[in-house]
């Protein structure tokens, strides 16, 4: 097995030969056990990992850009309910567009550019061969529904939260790569209701604190957190809608000799941004998948993930949907 080649390599040497999907992977664990916490930190803070590092960009574009956006378009074609915009969220959607496109252009000047004079905007994205002039606030000046358009330019899933009645409300979104939830069902819910099914966090006041934090954000402030689960295959669309299509993989993978290649650690880098004009909260969810075989190429990650999976309490494992295979995964990782 190829992992043996670098089993004894020290991290610095490993970093020079590992592929980018590993060196840039946002490995989320800083200890051998994992519990929920309000793990929020300022955006754009560089993070170094045993294999490399991540975190210096708000909008991460990687080798999967065109393929993932193609997959998003296909998912939307099959199921348009992945796009939800309650009518009062139109200004927030435009705010997200005019906030994110300039940031993306700044972060990727070699392929993208954005210019704005008053409400006249020009967006160029060479990865799509796109040169677009549009008018901010005018839906018809875009080639698609505005949030759909934004979702065709960034790999992140998008959610927009309105703040009123001393709460945050999930009132718009474009979510094609959900980790076992349904935007079509959740749209219109309060932030606390959205998180209703998550175990433990309510007793520990974690969601209440997160909401309070978000409600206090000032326009332009940007924060970040990570979340994780596991997925069988490089399947981004693990929404509740398509659950019957992928549910059986969860049991089938347990005894599959190809488990290390099939089973992926799924890490979400989530950005939380108070939009400057609408005052809405923009929630971006960028999903990264890395197979256990790849994880194992970084010895520190292999051991840490193995221990986290072994130690995770049953209710948390159940909620994450990993109960059936986590022991097998942990055993493989810790067996080295």
């Amino acid at each position, binding site marked *: 097995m190829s992992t043996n080649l670098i089993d004894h390599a020290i991290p610095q040497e490993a970093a020079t030969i590992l592929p980018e999907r590993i060196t840039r992977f946002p490995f989320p664990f800083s200890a051998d056990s994992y519990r929920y*916490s*309000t*793990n*929020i*930190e*300022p955006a754009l803070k560089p993070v170094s990992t045993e294999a490399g590092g991540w975190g210096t960009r708000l909008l991460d574009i990687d080798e999967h850009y065109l393929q993932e956006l193609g997959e998003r378009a296909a998912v939307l074609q099959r199921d348009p309910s992945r796009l939800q915009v309650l009518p*009062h*969220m*139109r*200004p*927030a959607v435009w*705010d997200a567009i*005019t906030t994110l496109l300039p940031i993306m252009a700044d972060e990727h000047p070699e392929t993208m550019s954005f210019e*704005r004079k*008053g*409400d006249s905007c020009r967006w160029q994205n060479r990865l799509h061969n796109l040169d677009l002039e549009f008018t*901010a*606030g005018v839906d018809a000046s875009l080639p698609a529904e505005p949030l759909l358009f934004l979702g065709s330019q960034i790999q992140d899933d998008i959610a927009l939260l*309105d*703040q*009123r*009645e001393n709460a945050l409300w999930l*009132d718009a979104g474009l979510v094609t790569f959900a980790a076992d939830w349904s935007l079509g069902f959740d749209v219109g819910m309060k932030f606390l209701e959205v998180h209703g099914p998550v175990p433990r966090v309510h007793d520990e*006041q974690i969601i209440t*604190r*997160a909401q*309070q*934090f978000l409600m*206090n954000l*000032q*326009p*332009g402030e940007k*924060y970040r957190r990570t979340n994780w689960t596991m997925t069988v295959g490089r399947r981004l669309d693990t929404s509740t809608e398509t659950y019957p299509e992928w549910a059986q993989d969860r049991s089938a993978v347990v005894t599959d000799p190809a488990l290390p290649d099939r089973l992926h650690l799924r890490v979400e880098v989530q950005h939380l941004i108070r939009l*400057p*004009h*609408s*005052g*809405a909260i923009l929630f971006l969810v960028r999903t990264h998948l890395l197979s256990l075989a790849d994880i194992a190429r970084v010895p520190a990650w292999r051991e840490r993930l193995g221990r986290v999976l072994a130690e995770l309490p049953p209710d948390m494992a159940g909620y994450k949907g990993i109960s059936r295979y986590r022991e097998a995964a942990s055993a493989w990782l810790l067996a080295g």
Partner: protein
Amino acid sequence: MTATALLAGGLKLQVAEVTAQTPSITSITFTDPAGGPLPAYVPGSHLLVQCGDGVNAYSLTGSGRSPSDYSVSVLRVASGAGGSAAMHRLRAGDRVLVSRPRSAFTPMATARHHLLIAGGIGVTPMLSHARAAAEWGMAATMIYMYRPAEGAHVPELRELLDTRLVECTDRGSFRQALAEKLSSQRLGTHLYVCGPAAFMESVLASARELGWPETRLHSEPFGTPELDAGQPFRAKLTRSGIQVEIPAGVSLLEALEGADVGVPNMCRKGVCGECSVAVLRGTPQHRDLYLSEDQKASGRTMMCCVSRSLDQELELDL
């Protein structure tokens, strides 16, 4: 409020234009000296402006969408601390330090209709709301009460709102207009009021009397949500054997970092719980959202990113 911390990361702008609105109200327009665009803002936002000896908050009067300038209108207050007089002395070309716009009086996205009630200089955030409503095709109605000859921004408001602007220059006609509007708004209407404190109180009281729920009532709350700069104090670090002085406006965490005492931290806003430090002596002034009431009462732990000290000295296990 000591606003040094708020002005950090602020903008150095130039006065582009000074216009007299009324004998006592002057509009001042600021632009980027380099001619660049300014950060967008939420309608109803205010700026902190450093002028003369002090820092004062003024409502921005634009819609906030893609602004090329920031405009405020300032009433000269004879009895004030002098901030308004200094503002009135500004001339085109002067440079001032302003904060980034701060939002505390947001229009409700779900509103079907905005009912804006302005008293005197309180018209400034209401003008911002009226402009944003017009830009987004939202319906807005305004009742504007001002003293004869002291109505600022009247021509703009007449153009923006047309028949949906009710101007009142005496108390009787204002009360009548208010009662009429308060009892004839369709469901989904939100009310916003800005003006002298007594004016706001009486408008809100009338609305409540007519059955308006709190959810639909919004009034300008200057200077509330920010944590203030706090009092200076000293931290004695028992394990490191050093003392660190924490001036007003500097957080304990920042002061510790300045003294090369690293504390693990994440959010720096008092929610994540990462920067907790053990308190051995002294009473912390808890300002975080992380610790429970019981934990706060015990006084044995504090979040050093936002919390301070009620005593002049704290002893910490660092």
